[in-house]
């Protein structure tokens, strides 16, 4: 699925690069940390809807071992897990109900 929501028939590697504000042009407030970019990517993927459904179904899950980034994501109402936590969720999803 592309970032615009269209479904691709095959797996494909796609690369996008966001413009970096140069130090001469941008003020410190305009400069965005990579953490913010990751969080914004999650918010964009959630597309305005809650990232967690009423039944607990996850639409977007941030997997990061960085606690600060996880806190930032949770502040934006994006669920976050460590790689171990994500592995556990994947195992639960794979287990027959």
């Amino acid at each position: 699925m592309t970032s615009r929501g269209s479904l691709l028939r095959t797996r494909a590697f796609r690369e996008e690069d966001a413009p970096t504000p140069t130090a001469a042009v941008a003020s410190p407030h305009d400069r965005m940390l990579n953490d913010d970019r990751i969080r914004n990517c999650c918010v964009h993927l959630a597309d305005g809807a809650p990232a967690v459904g009423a039944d607990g179904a996850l639409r977007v899950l941030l997997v990061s071992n960085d606690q600060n980034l996880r806190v930032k994501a949770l502040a934006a109402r994006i669920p976050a897990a460590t790689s171990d936590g994500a592995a556990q969720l994947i195992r639960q999803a794979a287990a027959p109900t």
Partner: protein
Amino acid sequence: MKLQLQEAAAQRQAARRAGSPSAPRAPRPTRPALRLVPMQSQLVFDTNALIDALPLVAAILDARRFFVRIPLIGRDRGRDAGRAVHTLFLTRLRFGRHPSRVAVVRELEGLRQAPVPAVAQCAAAALQLLDDALQEQHNP
């Protein structure tokens, strides 16, 4: 008059006692457990978590059950870790279409000597993947 005042004080004390922290609280409604939904959930991997959980990501990609997003892979490509992951993913996703793998193999062999263990492991895993693919082609 005095009796009325005493009764009012007793009522206030009783009301305070009812609202005191020692009184049992009503149970809160429990939140449903979080769960991933195949072909619906999107997993966004931080680059460090990606390197840490590379076998897991590879398994997800192979199973094609969840969508995997890696936001900063292009941005971090200049750094060793980002380059290793970038090369690994290009290798994984494109090796079937690449007639010549010399450049990829050279880069991976260089990265295998990297002092960062995660990068070295990543490059070694990618090389192993290439070897397996080549062996599979020669001995179907």
